[in-house]
């Protein structure tokens, strides 16, 4: 069974292998090239420290001009790979058989439809996920050796950084793959499954990106109005914030805005900073609060992301099996 699935998937699997070899070689070369540049231009200390403390600002500008497009390319590859897995491996997996009628040959042998389906799924999916994971690791390894000079400086919750880190790409790939196979079985048309699958995948990625944060465990922080919360600048993901009155109840957003406005310009003359801060608790804005996920907890959000997309993928695969059993 493994051989038969491998034989029918040979083209895709060899393409994957080619992508892995070419991609890995390119990344290793780029990285060593980049590390050389960093050392020779004396930027080494800028990699680990905050960009603001980097003294070699001219070299840094040059470095960024030379490398930022390549960084984007590396990120785009990992961002796009799940979609490619769905379009070129998931969608044609069953759609091509149904389109050409070759499923009839498989269905009239003694293995069950479910076993046939599982063996095809495993042979198509496992190598794709492995290749994706390896390339993702290599890109991360490359980007992290650029440190603060590269895109990782934007923090783990930056939309692109988040999408290419930890378990998320695997979750997206599983989902894209399952979506492709499901649409392939339902539509029985390779081209329809490929295009509709791509569109649905992109739509779902956008739609779910906001949902995922809500399921992640958040932390709450409160400070008095004169102190900054600090979470806006330390790389945390802030999910909600606002003001509390003296009783500790949240103040509605538009009311808070009016009150702040009133404190800013009480009598027409611009108040000093101290007057302004003193005005706030008097008006009923006693404290500030925020719900946030600290930078160090990003892995939890990734696991939630994997769970959401993984569950959807599982449901779609069950749907695929159901549709295949009904297929004639």
């Amino acid at each position, binding site marked *: *069974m493994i*051989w*038969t699935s491998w*034989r*029918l998937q040979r083209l895709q699997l060899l393409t994957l292998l080619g992508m892995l070899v070419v991609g890995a070689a390119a990344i290793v070369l780029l990285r060593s090239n980049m590390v050389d540049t960093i050392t020779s231009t004396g930027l080494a200390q800028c990699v680990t420290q905050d960009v603001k403390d980097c003294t070699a600002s001219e070299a840094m500008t040059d470095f960024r001009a030379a490398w930022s497009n390549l960084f984007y390319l590396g990120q785009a590859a990992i961002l796009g790979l799940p979609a490619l897995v769905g379009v070129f491996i998931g969608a044609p997996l069953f759609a091509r058989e149904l389109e*050409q*009628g*070759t*499923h*009839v*040959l*498989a*269905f*009239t*042998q*003694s*293995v*069950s*439809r479910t076993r*046939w389906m599982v063996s095809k799924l495993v042979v198509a999916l496992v190598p794709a996920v492995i290749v994706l994971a390896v390339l993702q690791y290599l890109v991360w390894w490359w980007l992290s050796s650029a440190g603060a000079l590269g895109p990782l400086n934007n923090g783990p919750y930056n939309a692109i950084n988040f999408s290419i880190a930890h378990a998320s790409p695997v979750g997206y790939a599983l989902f894209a793959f399952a979506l492709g196979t499901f649409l392939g079985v339902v539509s029985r048309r390779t081209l329809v499954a490929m295009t509709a699958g791509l569109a649905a995948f992109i739509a779902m990625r956008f739609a779910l990106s906001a949902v995922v944060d809500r399921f992640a465990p958040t932390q709450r922080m409160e400070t008095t109005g004169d102190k900054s919360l600090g979470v806006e600048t330390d790389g945390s993901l802030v999910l909600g914030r606002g003001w509390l009155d003296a009783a500790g109840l949240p103040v509605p957003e538009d009311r808070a805005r009016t009150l702040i406005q009133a404190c800013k310009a009480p009598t027409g003359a611009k108040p000093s900073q101290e007057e302004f801060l003193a005005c706030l608790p008097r008006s009923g804005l006693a404290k500030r609060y925020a719900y946030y996920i600290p930078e160090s907890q990003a892995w939890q959000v990734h696991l939630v992301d994997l769970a959401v997309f993984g569950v959807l993928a599982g449901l779609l695969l069950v749907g695929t099996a159901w549709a295949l*059993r*009904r297929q*004639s």
Partner: protein
Amino acid sequence: MTPLSATAVGKRYRDRWAVRDCSFTLPEGKVVALIGPNGAGKSTLLRMAAGLVRPTTGELRTFGAPVRGRIHPDVSFLAQDRPLHRDLTVRELERFCAAMNDRWSTDRVHEVLGLLADVDLDAKVGTLSGGVVTQVAIAMALGRLPRLLLLDEPLADLDPLARDETLRIIMTEVAERETTVVMSSHLLADLREVCDHVLLVDDGLVQVDGDIEEVLARHRILVGPPTGESTVEGTLVSATRTQRQSTLLVRDAGPVPEGWADSEPDLESLAMGYLRASRERRASARRR
């Protein structure tokens, strides 16, 4: 054991019944000709027997076991469009089928392919001619060592020589392994040589079911004057009338009346008679 039986089997596609209320029991070790015009439901019937299509009503049984969504291990099916993987070589295809079956005889496949005029085992299936593809597909079906072989239009795209070879393979299979064969075809003349049982389907219904010799012996073709039709006894199946004479296909005919010539029909004229009759029934139903 009965290789294939149907009880009140029907299959509806949206608002059209492809097969309606079909009931039959096929005898073991026979070669059954499944005949009927295009769209009569022959393919649907065979696909249901192979577990590819679920009947809307009724039930099919192969070797006593109800067909439920998968093919019986003792049954092999040749689909009408010969769904083989075109980019596999014949050898790879054989390996593919072997891997998908618990019981498989590579020797049997090679024996069958060896009987055929030079099939290159390393040629891709897609490069073979339509006739050779059919023969390869039959070889793969026989590799399962079936006791019931369902063939949907096995002779359709074969030239006369290949048709002869293919029929010979099927007949050898029947003789050596006592396999029951059901084959659908339009080519009635070829079927007559090899088949001993006929199942005539039209408009989704079984019109004739029986041993060919018996069925033919029960029918007469009567040719006589157009005015004297009332003198003919028996069940009139169909008639063609010209100004000068009437040709009648009659089941269970009585004694031949004066002025009429009588002969036993061949399979082709029998099938034609029944098909013409059901077409007329349909036409008159539409007029009403």
